[in-house]
């Protein structure tokens, strides 16, 4: 994939030479910008894209409108292929989730993140291990003991999608504690949380924003977070407990870490000024109070990366996904 990166660089230099007069003034969109969401309406990526759209509109951060378009087909493959084939189009950006890695690996569609131009990492989404509040397990240890004691495969884990982040975490837990779960895929995170409230599954790894309402309502209990350190938010949510009070899974003897990328990419062969424009735009978005409220309500990890750092992070993460999915037997057969 090296040659492609080189091509992009060469093209970028060539383009900036051709448009040297124009590039003196910073690039700005001249048409409405399409903001592609490779997932359905109402999900986490969709919410984030629409929040950004709302912030941009409210604070007048762009002269041209930003239009959110969902292209969810084939676990997001439709959206990625659309951006991949819009080579050189600076009026198109895409928000990604972990399906940036998992979809091409699991389905074999002709796409790799290196086909796109990285812009910025906006945040990382946390994963928390949830159980029904009526269940007796108060700690990770109780939970692990119960899962190990149950007959193989009778312990049910609910999650969003198949061979995606939730199932990868489930396989990670199985490995870490040497037990066998039955993973049941559902369409959306909200539905998964409600299935847990209704006791149709035994546990879930919902994102904070998907399950927080049920936690506050006393229906669900968080056991641990799949991050290296506890979450940063110390405002009490339920029973005087805050996000910060949820221990990391690792500290509780469940060695699995996972964070989901919420980042932005552009089509291949766009110029540096064009990427710069969006980096600056997202910096402005991040400074607004609405964005900070949104981060707080979803207990996001607010790491922000751009340029080479971002690309390096994505590359490492791709390797990790490939390893995790290979171990789990999730790779497409061809």
């Amino acid at each position, binding site marked *: 994939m090296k040659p492609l990166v080189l091509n992009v660089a060469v093209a970028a230099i060539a383009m900036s030479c051709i448009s040297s007069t124009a590039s003196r003034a910073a690039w700005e969109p001249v048409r409405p910008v399409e903001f592609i969401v490779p997932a359905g309406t109402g999900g986490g990526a969709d919410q984030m894209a629409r929040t950004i759209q709302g912030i941009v509109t*409210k604070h007048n951060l762009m002269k041209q409108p930003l239009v959110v378009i969902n292209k969810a087909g*084939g676990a997001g493959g439709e959206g990625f292929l659309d951006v991949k084939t819009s080579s050189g189009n600076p009026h198109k950006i895409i928000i990604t989730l972990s399906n940036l890695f998992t979809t091409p690996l699991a389905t074999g569609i002709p796409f790799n993140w290196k086909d796109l131009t990285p812009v910025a990492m906006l945040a990382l989404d946390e994963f928390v291990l949830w159980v029904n509040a009526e269940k007796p397990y108060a700690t990770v240890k109780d939970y692990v003991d119960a899962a190990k004691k149950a007959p193989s495969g009778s312990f049910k884990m609910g999650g969003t999608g198949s061979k995606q982040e939730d199932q990868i975490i489930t396989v990670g837990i199985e490995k870490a504690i040497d037990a066998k779960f039955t993973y049941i895929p559902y369409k959306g995170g*909200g539905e998964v949380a409600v299935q847990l409230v*209704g006791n149709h599954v035994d546990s879930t790894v919902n994102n904070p924003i998907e399950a927080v309402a049920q936690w506050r309502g006393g229906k669900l209990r968080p056991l641990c977070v799949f991050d290296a350190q506890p979450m940063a938010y110390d405002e009490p949510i339920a029973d005087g407990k805050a996000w910060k009070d949820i221990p990391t899974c690792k500290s509780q003897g469940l060695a699995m870490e996972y964070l989901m990328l919420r980042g932005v990419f552009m089509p291949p062969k766009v110029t540096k000024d064009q990427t710069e424009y969006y980096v600056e735009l997202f910096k402005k978005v991040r400074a607004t109070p609405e964005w900070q409220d949104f981060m707080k309500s979803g207990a996001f990890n607010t790491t922000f990366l751009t340029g080479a750092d971002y690309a390096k992070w994505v590359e490492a993460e791709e390797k990790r996904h490939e390893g995790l999915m290979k171990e789990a037997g999730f790779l497409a057969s061809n």
Partner: protein
Amino acid sequence: MEELANLFHGFAVALQPYNIMLMIIGITLGVIIGVLPGLGGANGVAILLPLTFSMPPTSAIIMLSCIYWGALFGGAITSILFNIPGEPWSVATTFDGYPMAQQGKPGEALTAAFTSSFVGALFAVIMITLVAPLVAGFALRFGPAEKFAVYFLAFCSFVGLSKEPPFKTIAAMMMGFALAAVGLDSITGQLRLTFGVTELLNGFDFLIAVIGLFGIGEILLTMEEGLAFRGGNASINLRVVLQTWRELPAYWMTSLRSCLIGCWMGVTPAGATPASFMSYGIAKRLSRRGNNFGKGEIEGVIAPETAAHAAGTSALLPMLSLGVPGSPTAAVLLGGLLIWGLQPGPMLFVEQKEFVWGLIASMYLGNLAGLIVVLTCVPIFAAILRVPFGIIAPLILVLCAIGAYSVHNSTFDVMLMLVFGVLGYLLKKCNYPLAPLVLAIVLGDKAEEAFRQSLLGSQGSLGIFFSNGLVSTIMALGLVALFWSAIQEGYSRLRTSMA
């Protein structure tokens, strides 16, 4: 009676001039969105959502939910006039609504549809007002097995009651299932039947199939039959509304039954589409004029419309109290709630009283405003059929193409729509029923998903579909509906042999 006081407070909020203005804008926009097939309520709300971020949340949700009501009303218009259902739950409305329009009674059909929609919605809102906390918990009992049972019941109540030759019905339905299977298999995460064609990643969208099968297919048929719309001599004054209203009370039993089916389906949350099909199927079986269904019976318009709206409205209840959207539009509204900093879930009714009751009050007022807006326009809608076919047909074609394009912003879908049009024409010529095919496309993948989720949970045992009272009852009802004709025949034979 604290609820009642809250509700009146809600009315006070909803009746502020600013909110009334938003309500009327919302309804009008919604009707336009509903008339354009393919755009749909969910897309309409999603497009307009960001515009509302600067409003107070209560005003914003009033406007957005009014777009939703407007779209629900608007969906019936094209179904009845041109046989093009704009939303999945309008499909059943075409079965009798379109024949009525062809017989020169578009005004009656539209009035019946709009009024039934209003009745269904009103019934559901009253239910939400009175028993919200009780009903909300019911949705929690629905796991995959229960959901599959509901889909099973929808299929059975439709198939067992159909008058067409059973093998043609089954053939059409199987074709629908095959089409529904294309795309991503959500259980294994692998692509199915796409043959490496990237355009097929999304599978066959219901809307494109329906716009083609019904809309384009119908235009082809009309062209063959002499380039003229039947029903062009429709009366076009407002008196038709009053005349139809005089007839409607006779169907109170159908209405009440459809309201109950709708509310149940909306809360569960299986949604408006199974509700409308189920309600139509049951009305066909229980009505004294059941044999006339499909030939332009007004009851065949009332049943699906009432149920669809009761379901569409009550779908907001699980969204608010549990955070599970009962419909695609509700899912977009849910996203909006989160952005406004409101967390749907058990605490919303406690912490955000003004918002919740403002919304509920706006359901009453929005539906009333919607009814007035659409009823006054009935003569105008009906008059469209007087426009010569040579002028209106190209317009419909353009409308269909825009609709098909706007589903995924893809020109491939427009081609696909034309292919479905030819398919629809051929099927009609060979007397294959289109309804089972459409039902299978809409519910096929959902039913499959629920079925496989259930079996994963039970480790492959079919016993899960009879594992508790709720799911066994629904499954048993489905089996009864499926073999109803056989049961009836056996019963009458038994009686003659006894005598």
